[in-house]
């Protein structure tokens, strides 16, 4: 348990960034997803078997947890039973962390451009440029083939360049 805590603490910053990316930069959702992912690791529902790097494995758990959370939210919204959810604390958490990022123009443009990409492209670019993973590791995290990850990477990068260029021109 001590080793797991150390590993999690060591990758906590990167994990939070990846959780933000998976939650479309919603800090509250990212903290909730990260919390649930840690819970899965600690109670054994997600078990690291050493076949990949721990960081890659952790990112995969966070991505699946985020997907589950989105699915649960969609179901709850469809059933219109959100009022029955007993999460009063969630609504009171302010988006303080995101505010400072939005205040930075460069970061705001990057986030805006990433929002216009497809989710797969956005995730690949985040893993490669933000987390400094290789394309193979990114493919492993996303559960796709390396070839597919490479295509998403190239197309996403071209699209991102174009979007950032447009924003730059508008800014000028």
């Amino acid at each position, binding site marked *: 348990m001590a080793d797991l805590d150390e590993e999690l*603490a060591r990758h906590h910053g990167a994990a939070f960034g990846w959780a933000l990316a998976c939650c479309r930069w919603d800090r509250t959702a990212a*903290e909730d997803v990260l*919390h649930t992912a*840690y*819970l899965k690791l*600690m109670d054994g529902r997600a078990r690291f078997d050493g076949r990949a790097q721990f960081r890659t494995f952790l990112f995969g758990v966070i991505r699946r947890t985020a997907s589950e959370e989105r699915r649960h939210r969609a179901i709850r919204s469809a059933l219109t*039973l959100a009022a029955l*959810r007993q999460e009063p604390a969630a609504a009171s958490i302010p988006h303080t962390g995101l505010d*400072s990022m939005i205040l930075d123009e460069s970061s705001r443009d990057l986030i805006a451009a990433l929002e216009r990409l497809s989710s797969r492209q956005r995730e690949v670019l985040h893993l490669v440029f*933000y987390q400094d993973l290789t394309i193979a590791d990114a493919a492993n995290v996303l559960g796709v083939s390396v070839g597919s990850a490479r295509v998403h990477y190239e197309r996403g990068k071209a699209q991102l360049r174009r979007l950032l260029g447009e924003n730059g021109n508008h800014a000028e």
Partner: protein
Amino acid sequence: MQSDDDLRARFHKLADRVSSTTPEFHSVAGTSRGTRSVSRPWYALRRLAVAGASLAAAMLFLAVGLVWGTSTGYASARVQSERERNEIAATAGRVTNQLATLRLELTRTRAGLVELAAKQGASARTSLLAAEAEVDSMTANVARIEHNVSTAGSAPSGAAFAILRAMPVRTALAALSCSPIPPVAPVPRVAALQQGIPVIDLPAATTRAPETFGGILGVRQAPDGKVLVNDARRRQLRLFDSTLTTSVVVRDSMPGSATSYGRLGTPLIPFLGDSSLIAEWNSQTMLLLDPHGQVVRAVDLPGERIFGPINSGYSGIDSKGRIIMRGAILPRRLPPGVTTPPAGGQYPDSLAILRVDLDQRRVDTIGQIRRPVMKLVTEKSSLGKTSTLFTMDPLQSVDEFAVTANGSVAFVRGHDYHIDWLRPDGDTSATPKLPFTWKRRSDADKARLADSVRAAQDALLALGYPMADFVLTQPGDCGNIPAGGSGRSGNANAPPLNPEVLRNCVRFESNIISAPLGVLRSPLPPLAELNRNGAIEDYEAPIRPGSTLADLDGNLWILPRTTMLSRKGELVYDVVNAKGELFERVRLPLGRAIAGFAKGGVVYLTSGDITNGFTLERTKLAPSPVAHRP
């Protein structure tokens, strides 16, 4: 254009921003290890509560939907009912006016009949009675229509809501609210039926066989439409196509082949499904025929003595494949000194109805029916031949029985015209008296009947009963015995008869003279004085022997002895359904008799005479207006 390094730098700058706002690991992990771990049971409970709430909400929506839908259905039914009531009221008004006019016309007709009777005297009494009966029938029909119209016009809205009351939604609502479901009141049907019994004219034949028959004793329709006809007099079994146009002889009178009919005409007895039974006289067994008349197998009867009675023409089959038949007629010897000369006996006034179980090979008596007292007189000639004279009283009331299509045995009692039922499950019941126009006999009527019977007897005696001989050759053939030989009178020059032939010949003679044998007897006393033990009954018997038939739709067809509904002499049957309700009367076309039935109201009719042959026709009865025909 930004290079990969530029992109990486921008991402790292974003990472720096994010890292500055990243929450502490222990705050997240600690929450996971502490609060969340402790709250897991509460989390499960919360999910359980959400599921329960979802289920409750779904039930609530379902209940609301049901109530809403029911209310809408009731409203629609109320509007529809209101509209129909208005239409019925308008129609009822018009019909009532028409009925009033019709009733006035009937009253005028009745008055005209009375006036006509006064003018023409008693000679036209019979025709006037028939016309009056027709008027009565029309009056009954008018009353029934008027009753139906008034009932429909004053029907409360509940009639339209009856469907809603019985619908599953209401049952579901009652189940949801745990309230009892009030039963729907049964509709009294028998009383309404007896008020006016419709008289239906059987439609003219739609199909007719081109050839004639010697005498039809059984018609069976196969599932493919082919028709098996038993021509008992010509001893042929013919299979017609569904249009009665062409036929093939399935069993022929020609002896010596495997498909020989046999030497005696015999009835075709309906068996289980579409199969039939027919007698094989040589081996004294019954043959099981398929719908096309092909022999399937031989049916061994439990005992020899039931073979004859089964082929008496009064046998049926119940739902378990048991043969219902009347018992053997065995004469009871009269005490010495009581019999009429030279010797005699008397048949009992009742017959046992037997049930033959072919599987268990047992014969049970299931009932008794009343038959006319019949006496016999036995005479021995100088040749050693014994002649037996059968005589019976035609004026007594008798009982009849028939087996319906559902296996019930109906005993039609002649003394009061009611039916005793023996159901397939063993239950017995009795229906009330069927409506019948009872005619009381006065003393003058009784004397007139006795005189007419005696006159008829004398007339037959004068003719020598030419067609009354019934020859049963068993086991040898004595049908061509030459006249004369010996006896009290006859041709003395004729060659002597072979005594061996005569010993093998059993001859049943209906009366008086056995001319073919050359044995002449002195005339015997007339039948009316010979047989009747008691006085003539006070009322005319409602039915006669052989008057009850069962169709294949579960109904009983009873031919009353007298009816006022026959216009020109047509047969009018009382049709009783399986519940014992006389629900309609069927008037056959003139000169037609029923030869058989098929399912769906199909009736086979026959007409003709012995000289010119009998025809076979098919018609179909229209559905009953009171919808009691299955």
